[in-house]
């Protein structure tokens, strides 16, 4: 069926209007993605012509590169701890702020303020906070604990990164607090009549009602955490720890290093696809398990 003149004109304008996205998609996304697949199968320093090596980069990464596995392990550990922990802390603080507290706005501001600090500034501040004789180790010293070399000891670096991410738990707090305001008051009234205490009400009403928000932020948080870069790059400058640098490596900084310090463009491209695979697997996993624990209002008839 032929379209009317008006419909044809409308369609034409549609294509004109979306052309910025189409051009951007082709030039900055699809094109680069296809070339990235090709690069990942070459040995290439970006100056001389690329040399085709097939799947060599991938097999080398997966079977012969201990730094890659170390970086993957560190990244998974960081993500698996920092994201759920951040949400838990956020949930706990939001629950407190949802009560009738005086000066709630002040508390909320103080908790949220760290999330407004750009990552670079936050990382630089943490470099001094976590210094061997910085405030954190001072406080630990008061209670008789000898603080570790947070940023130099590879077994502690992960925890330094987790501390920095927990400092930003305010964003989860504010988000969950807003969602808590949307829970109908009648649910709590009914529960109180039934004799349920505050703790029981928290676990039986508040948490189930919030699971969709928690789930969304869990998945988004994991995706973000897998891609951690600036914090690692700034907290652990390569020059300061040549010996331990690889032991505390994570995925994206490793990729960055391979690409822009050593010009291993092919190898780095292969890392990026493995990173994508990891992100994809975890996202799908999160979605597969939703039915078991995410509560949607519409399920209740």
């Amino acid at each position: 069926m032929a379209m009317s003149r008006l419909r044809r004109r409308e369609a034409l304008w549609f294509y004109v209007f979306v052309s910025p996205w189409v051009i951007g998609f082709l030039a900055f996304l699809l094109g680069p993605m296809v070339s990235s697949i090709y690069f990942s199968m070459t040995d290439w320093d970006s100056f001389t012509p690329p040399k085709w090596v097939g799947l060599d980069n991938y097999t080398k990464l997966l079977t012969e590169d201990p730094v890659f596995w170390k970086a993957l392990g560190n990244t998974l550990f960081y993500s698996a701890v920092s994201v759920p922990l951040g949400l838990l802390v956020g949930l706990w603080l939001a629950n407190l702020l949802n009560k009738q507290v005086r000066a709630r706005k002040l508390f909320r501001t103080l908790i949220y303020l760290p999330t407004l600090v750009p990552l670079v500034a936050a990382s630089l501040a943490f470099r001094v906070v976590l210094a061997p004789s910085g405030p954190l180790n001072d406080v630990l010293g008061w209670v008789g604990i000898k603080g570790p070399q947070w940023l130099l000891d590879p077994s502690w670096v992960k925890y330094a990164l987790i501390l920095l991410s927990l400092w930003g738990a305010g964003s989860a707090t504010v988000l969950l607090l807003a969602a808590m305001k949307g829970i109908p008051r009648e649910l709590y009234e009914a529960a109180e009549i039934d004799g349920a205490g505050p703790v029981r009400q928290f676990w039986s009403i508040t948490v189930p009602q919030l699971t969709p928000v928690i789930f969304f932020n869990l998945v988004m948080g994991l995706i973000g955490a897998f891609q951690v870069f600036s914090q690692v790059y700034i907290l652990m400058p390569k020059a300061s720890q040549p010996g331990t640098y690889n032991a505390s490596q994570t995925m994206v900084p490793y990729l960055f290093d391979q690409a822009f310090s050593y010009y291993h463009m092919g190898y780095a491209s292969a890392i990026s696809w493995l990173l994508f695979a990891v992100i994809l697997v975890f996202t799908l996993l999160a979605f597969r398990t939703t039915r078991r624990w995410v509560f949607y209002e519409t399920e209740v008839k």
Partner: protein
Amino acid sequence: MATLAPTVAPQRGGQAGKDEEPPGGTARVLGVFKATPFTYATLIIVSAVLSVPLVFAVSIALSTDHTVSTNAFTILPHEFEWRNFTKVFGGDLPMGRFLVNSLIIALGSVIGQMVSSGLVGYAFARLRAPGKNVMFLVVIATMMIPTQITMIPQFILFKDLGWVNTYLPLIVPNFFSNAFNVFLVRQFVSRLPSELDEAAMVDGLGFFGIYRRIMLPMLWPVLIAIGIFTLTYNWGDFMGPLIYLNDESKMPLALGVQYITTTAVAGQPPPWNLVMVGSILLTLPMIAVYYLGQRYLYEMDISGGSAGVK
């Protein structure tokens, strides 16, 4: 750090301040909402702990060079070297230059996203054309691609264009919209009443005229929200400038302030007081933007209902 889950719904009236009222207005306080001394103790301790890095950063920013070289910092400021705040703008520290560079990159990106995402989002919401739904699925799918995949080929592309060590690789891609912003605008437009643009069509206004005269004035809340997101992201972006900018005179503040820590003379600590002044200069505009823009973010109900998840 956790991500915002935006759900877009144009709303009448401001939401700000609403949450200051007790749950349920003046009604009796339910047991679960009663604050105990334990509630206050926890909130006070948590707020204090979270404030330590900020207070410590300010304390370092106000330290003398001597304190820096002896590493004798205290959490609470004990000296007030305000000169540090003027020192960073003179001498061989190009902090002023860094700030100007940050502004150029961030504002260029904001303009690009506001112009392009508005057009594209409107088209996806209102105009009918063959292939539109498939295209929109592609838009959504692209949100899943991590930037690291395209990072290297994009670098090669911009290198071939001779754009390395210019602002262009950081600004220009923003003129081609991005999936997330397009999604925001589309959701926003599809909840606006369609009588207005239909009436305009009957009056003989063309599609571009409808967008410019009818739509654009109504789109401001969502465009400002996009502007805030874009500004925040590009102001704080570290990896992009790190890849593309080598000249100190071209670096934005986020990169420059880190760069200062790497240029210290061997064996000496970085000028931490000036680094912290730079970090504060990097942070203050973000706090200002948040407080000025809060109203728009509330209006967009960006604070995280669950609709975006379903």
